[in-house]
């Protein structure tokens, strides 16, 4: 396995600039570790936008079907009760509950999909380059591959952006 290179930075701007620089030198960026969601780093790392929006819509749509047909089945098929002469299928009256079910399904579905995808689960230990990730330090994890010959070595690029290499 190739060796991973880890660089440490003290603020978000140095990290983002450094990501751009090492990528320009064709060094592969594996991941970055940051204390907060750094603005603009997704573009610098060229991350694809998430598919979770579609997951959210799908769960919401399932919620709509469950909400509407569930109420229909209960009120008109399984055990119809005459309440004030209202029609069995009182669709307008079913809308508020259907709406809440959409929100419930979409919200919980999205969050649990995220947990499952990112393997976040109850009681899992956090594995990170340093405990300071969650406090005040930014780390960049790179893979030393076929770096372009003409460019400076990774450590120099990192130094130029006020970072320092960390022993792996």
């Amino acid at each position, binding site marked *: 396995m190739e060796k991973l290179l880890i660089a440490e930075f*003290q*603020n978000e*701007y140095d990290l983002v600039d450094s990501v751009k620089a090492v990528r320009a030198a064709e060094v592969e960026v594996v*991941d*970055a*570790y940051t*204390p*907060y*969601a*750094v*603005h*603009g*780093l*997704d573009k610098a790392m060229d*991350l694809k*936008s*998430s598919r*979770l929006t579609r997951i*959210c819509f799908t769960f919401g749509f399932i919620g709509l079907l469950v909400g509407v047909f569930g*109420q229909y089945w*209960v*009120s008109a098929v*399984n*055990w119809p*009760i005459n*309440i004030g002469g*209202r029609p069995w299928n*009182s669709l307008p009256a*079913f809308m*508020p*509950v259907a*709406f*809440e*079910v959409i*929100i*419930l399904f*979409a*919200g*919980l579905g*999205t*969050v649990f999909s*995220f*947990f499952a995808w*990112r*393997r*976040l*689960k*109850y*009681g*899992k*230990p*956090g*594995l*990170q380059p340093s405990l*300071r*990730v*969650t*406090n*005040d330090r930014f780390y960049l994890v790179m893979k030393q591959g076929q770096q372009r010959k003409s460019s400076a070595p990774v450590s120099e690029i990192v130094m130029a952006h*006020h970072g320092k290499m960390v022993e792996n």
Partner: protein
Amino acid sequence: MADHQISIREPQIHGNKNLNDVTNEVCNIMDRKPTWLWWLGISLALSALTLGIVSVSYQIATGIGTWGLNKTVGWAFDITNFVFWVGIGHAGTLISAILFLFRQKWRTSINRSAEAMTIFAVICAGLFPIIHMGRPWLAYWMFPYPNFRGPLWINFRSPLAWDVFAIGTYLIISATFWYFGMIPDLATVRDRAKNKIKKFFFGALSLGWNGSYRVWHRYETVYALLAGLATPLVVSVHTVVSFDFATSSIPGWHTTTFPPYFVAGAVFSGFAMVLTLMIIARKTLKLEDYITLNHIENMTKVIIVTGGIVTASYATEFFIAWYSGNGFEQFVFLNRALGPFAWAYWIMVGCNLITPQFFWFRSIRRNVTIVFILSIFVNIGMWFERFVIIVTSLHRDFLPSAWSMYSPTWVEIGTLIGSFGLFFTLFLLFIRTMPMISMGEVKAVLHYRGKEKE
């Protein structure tokens, strides 16, 4: 480059902090020993809660007859408290979701505690309908599930059934949103924890969060989606609560303006409660750098707007009553303003119409003591609004021989005080056990570019 723009705005967070300062100052609130003020607060809150438990136990053991209700006034104190507490909750979601979608960065230092306030307020609210059932041990009958009574399903045409779904969904989604937003901060607490219990507890709750940016990127997407879902949800919840009244045929309740009127009123009262809590928190926990005068000023501006909508609603109700030509409708509104409950009506008008007008003045918006006092007046006014809507519309109905008055018994007042006790107990425990300021979000608005000397 966009990254290197010079900010001409005043910074969100004062005190020229670095990232480590934020972590330490927020976590220190949990680490240091509680102050005498906290002990005083929790003893008062627990005493109030005890009174509430005694009142509710007595009521459940004896029956709803312990309340001041009668044949004419079948809904009064209990439903007033329910609508009041649901309304309080709305500001939290507004701050956490709607202001997030509008990119209002100032929300970062208050959103965590405002969301906590939402959850605790909704818990308090949810208790009242359950108590009102008289047989709360059968509360699960509210949910549709296959059963051996038919199967007898719930009536989905009833606004009260809508309420169950609206409040239930609201509680679940708010709690999810709150916890989800807290995961990175829980990891921060985990990584700096010294003692074993804390390490275990926060290690379990932080789900192995490691600050990986690839996860952050997805996390931000989910957060935005939850905000997008919570926004229509919060509007729908108070809309459904207003349907409890608006879909009935009682004059004074049977109004199409109720949904926007109730939602605006909810945000109005909720922001007042956020102000009350935040002013106490910033003073006692010394968070002046995080919850600045600008935050307070922004919240008072929301109060001016929503107070204006509430005022317009009061005027609209009277206008429509006159314009409808319906004698019963006209009577209810004249009775509200001039009848035996006129004192409650004018407390409501005084607190809700006049109080926000002070906030037109910048010197008052930035005076913490006056804002604190005015915020309490708004809370009182909004409680009375619900009382006025519910009781004055009922107590003189179509048949003068059925007219009656209503006054609460000690059981009802004890239950109200108990709900405040529950709310403040939960809030004070929250301050001690969870990071009450969203560190991850505050750090992002610091625009910190400093470099420490090695």
